[in-house]
């Protein structure tokens, strides 16, 4: 049942990515182009996405779930070097490609040289990180 829930959530997530414009690299690059022709519309994606998660989490944090572990709490508030370096490198890659991991996978539904290279390189980058000890998200 947990797997079925995850599958359906993946579908809804992907349709949300499509509707919001997150699958379009040019749109992402426009959003990050704050010193040029800035396209702020992706802020309107972030707002409801974060708001809905926050409402659900606030209502259910620490409570049991029907098909898994309890709803997690805030998690550690540790700000360490890997967080800054990793997020920094991720941002550079995001600005170069206009593609983050979710869209890299969903865009494979329309295979092209661009979508295959973007997703393949992202997977290779994740695999490269295996040389480091595991961190929790």
């Amino acid at each position, binding site marked *: 049942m947990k797997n079925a829930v*995850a599958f359906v959530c993946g579908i809804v997530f992907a349709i949300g990515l499509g*509707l919001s414009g997150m699958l379009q690299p040019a749109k992402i690059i426009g959003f990050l182009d704050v010193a040029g022709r800035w396209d702020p519309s992706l802020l309107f994606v972030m707002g409801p996405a974060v*708001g809905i998660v926050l409402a659900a*989490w606030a209502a259910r944090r620490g409570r049991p779930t029907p098909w898994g572990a309890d709803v997690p709490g805030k998690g550690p508030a540790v700000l360490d070097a890997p*967080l800054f370096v990793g997020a920094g490198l991720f*941002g550079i890659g995001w600005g170069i490609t206009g593609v983050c991991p979710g869209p890299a996978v969903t865009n494979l*539904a329309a295979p092209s040289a661009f*979508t295959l290279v973007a997703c393949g390189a992202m*997977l290779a980058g994740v695999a490269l990180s295996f040389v480091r000890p595991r961190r929790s998200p």
Partner: protein
Amino acid sequence: MNWHALAGGALIGTAAAALLVLTGKTAGVSGIVDGVLRGEKGEWGWKVAFLLGLLAGGVVLRVTMPETLASGSPRTLPLIALGGLLVGFGARLGGGCTSGHGVCGMGRLSLRGLVGTVVFMATGALAVFLLRKFS
């Protein structure tokens, strides 16, 4: 125009919230990809199912709204290969990507999520600025 962004964001939030309250799991895509590639014990099944859902959702989009899928990129393929490597490696080193830090982290009032999001938006803007200036 922004109606689409709001509706899309609401769907993304609904999916992440449902996964969180029904299974206790975080819809952070880079962490999910990581678990699938590693063959992570006890987590592999739902993580594979979520990624298959992302692909199936892409197929739904292709049938119903094909214009929403990427048709190409403003960047060259070698740049995309380099950027993609940074996206995957950086997300794992930093413990999250747009969905993990940005949506699920900030949605749980996580300091790491907030700081990660601010950092990757800043370096992303810097990369876009430099590429526009020097290309």
